[in-house]
């Protein structure tokens, strides 16, 4: 399945809902969209991976890049990843310790997770 990208606002967060496959072919489109969002002034970005069927290292690299850019502009990147299949990819690469990962958009936008509190300290 091709990549689909849709944004919506939830309280003071911008949620980017991704569907399909994030790989070496589609990742550049995701990178462009995330850069666009940051340039448009988005600060608290939630990337919802709930409908993602495949995620490779290129996609992970794009997410780390967005994380970095948002931090540099006093923003934050939070991930929503309810699927164990994808969580495993974060664990194997050690990136689960870099990202603040939640099970649902509600959880991600309500804030106050221990991990988020630590990162902000």
């Amino acid at each position, binding site marked *: 399945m091709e990549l689909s990208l849709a944004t919506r606002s939830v309280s003071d967060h911008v949620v980017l809902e991704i569907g399909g496959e994030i*790989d*070496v*072919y589609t990742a550049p489109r995701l990178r462009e969209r995330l850069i666009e969002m940051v340039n448009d002034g988005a600060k608290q970005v939630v990337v919802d991976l709930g409908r993602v069927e*495949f995620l*490779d*290292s290129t996609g992970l690299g794009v997410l780390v890049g967005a*994380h*970095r850019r948002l931090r540099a502009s006093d923003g934050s990147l939070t991930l929503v990843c309810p699927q164990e299949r994808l969580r495993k990819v974060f664990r194997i*690469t*050690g990136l689960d310790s870099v990202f603040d990962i939640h099970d649902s958009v509600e959880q991600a936008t309500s804030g106050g997770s221990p991990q988020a509190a630590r990162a902000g300290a």
Partner: protein
Amino acid sequence: MTASPGPSATVSLTFVPDPAYVRTVRLVAAAAARRAGVSDDLLDEVRLATGEACARAVALHRRLGVDDMIAVAMTGGTRFTICVTDRGPADDAEREPGEDTGDILAQVAAESGRLAMDEEVLSAGVGLALLQGVVSDLAVGASSDGQGTEIRMSWPVQRRPRGPA
């Protein structure tokens, strides 16, 4: 000029170094693995590892401006083996997989939000970590003709292969 897939390959294909075809190879790999008798639980790993090996080869060809085809050979048997061969310089093959991975991941963890690392370099390191993480039997070395690097990985076959319909 493409690598010989070997006489016993069940499925072999070559593709131009274009990221658009990596998905196609992933789909073929998962289907061939299933046909060869690899457990359904492992198909995600076959898909992921094949994607990483092909993405790595595509990135290498593009970085070096090499237009040659990338070869993928899949072989059934007591184990299901996938071999991805690029046409990059063979000295690249002398690096064992994961040599840089630890460093890169440590850097990711240490720098977290203030990463100064190039995304491509990061992805390459993460790709190797993924390959090592999902493939217990992984070998990287010079290709048999010495003109590129070969990533060979295999998975156990847990049930009788599906014969022709």
